[in-house]
């Protein structure tokens, strides 16, 4: 079975859109973080699909695949820092709602 690349791209676009909307709508910072992961994975999916699309029998275009590995790595780092920050927030405010993040404005 061979899923056409276009389908994968559309799926990825959908994932990205869900991620963006989730980021915009959800108030829980942890879920917002997960939405970011969703967006990153949309990018990964696109990379992999495109990587396959641009490969031929003779030359394999690995750039996209390599990029996605880096993305996964970076996503892990981000999650680590992000969660730490969320803990710091929770310690201070006993909440992880993003509304708590509007002390500074104007």
């Amino acid at each position, binding site marked *: 079975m061979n899923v056409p*690349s276009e389908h994968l*791209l559309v799926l*990825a676009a959908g994932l*990205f859109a869900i*991620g963006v909307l989730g*980021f915009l709508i959800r108030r829980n*910072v942890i879920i*917002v*973080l997960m939405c*970011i992961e969703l*967006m*990153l994975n*949309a*990018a*990964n999916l*696109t*990379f992999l*699909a*495109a*990587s396959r*699309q*641009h490969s031929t029998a003779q030359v394999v*275009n690995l*750039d*996209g695949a*390599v*990029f996605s590995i*880096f*993305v996964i790595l*970076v996503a892990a*780092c*981000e999650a680590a*820092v*992000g969660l*730490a*920050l*969320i803990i*710091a*927030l929770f*310690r*201070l*405010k006993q909440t992880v709602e*993003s509304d*708590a*993040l*509007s*002390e*500074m*404005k*104007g």
Partner: protein
Amino acid sequence: MNPQDLLHLFDARALAAVAPLLALSAGLIVLLVAGVFRSLESLRGPIMVASLLVAGWFTATNFGAPPGSVIDGTYLADRASSAWGLLFVVATLLAWLFSQHYYSEAERPFQLEHDVLMLSTPIGMTLMAGAQNLIVFFIGLEILSIPLYALASFRRSRSRSVEAGLKYFLLGAFAAAFFLYGASLLYAATGTLQLQEIAKIGIHGPLALAGVALVMASLFFKVSVFPFHLWVPDVYQGSPTPVTALMATGTKAAAFAFLLNSMFMLPKSAALLVAAIALVTMALGNLGALAQTDVKRMLAYSGVAHAGTVLLVVAGTLAGDPEANGALHAALFYMGAYVFTAAGAFGLLALLERDGERFTSLDALKGLAQRRPVIAAALTLFMLSLGGIPATGGFLGKWMVFSSLVRAGLIWPAAIGALLSVVALGYYLRVVVAMYMQPIAERDAALARGPDSSAAAAIAAAVCAVFVLAMGVLPNLFLDRLI
């Protein structure tokens, strides 16, 4: 990649090209190791400074040398990226010097972590500036950003610091996701992540254009132009001031370095749009700053305005600036001056904050000239440079930016930009007015002189002042060598 290329990975030129990165990384490791031993505490500073200086020295040697590319041309150490690299080293050094004695007793035990995080940022910046490949840029971006997220909320007992860190992190990650998705679309459209390859193939079709738009959006986020700049005031204000200095100077410079490298992706017809974005950014930054009462936040807005100004060179290039390197030179000099000026300004605010957090407010600056004449004089100099008054580096930077526009025939944007800088002077002057022309508040008069200034900060401020003046009065020292 061919197996043969692996051999080139370690030839002398390639090594020289990445030497600054290696030096910084080595310094980082040494610092970490030394940090384990309490007895070596006094060595931490010297290690930090030494690794930055060595990295700077390596960067400087890359100037005269022919461009050195690494790993199949994904990273390039040429004259431009080396110039940027020097700026990053300087920015980090200045921020670090200003951070000495900045933190409170409770935060001081974590100085090691602070220093390690800070030392890792120039690695990211340098990678960004030299990146010829979207992967390398992304890695650089994250090496820069992730430590900064942590640094922003370094004063984790203060809600503003945490808020700044989280906001920066969430929005930064959000923007990074845009970059990635944009990069993936570009890749889908062109099949390559190499900038030169993309340039050869060209940006055709909606997929590629959408990719460019998203990549640009994330870059605009990093350099903080409209409408991607809203995070800046909050994050700059909430972060520890030395970190703000680093963000304002280093991060912005690194993002611009890559923006200039990748602006070929923008359609020529976008010139006016980019100019409009830049001008709106200047307007929002300047008008917003006009409404501030806290100098730190005001400087954040001013940073937005300056980003808009630099973005003008992109518009100039797109509109057909006949000078091939016009944009690069202008951006380099402008950001060079800005690094010293903004670092100096934020650094002095950091110094003042040691009397209490309220001392970043405009009110508390009243009569500062009597209380701390040297700081007031230096801050005035920086304000004038930010305002682009001659005899300071800021002036010539502004000159070069507008030159790019004028050469490209964008006279009206240049004129509007010039008028918007008048608004900017309006708030820079307010700082000077407060310091020199308004009477000192009674409770501040009692302070007479605050605690002794830190020597490190004093040196840093002096360096900033000297460079700001030198870039304004003797620009040949810089122009002849750097460009």
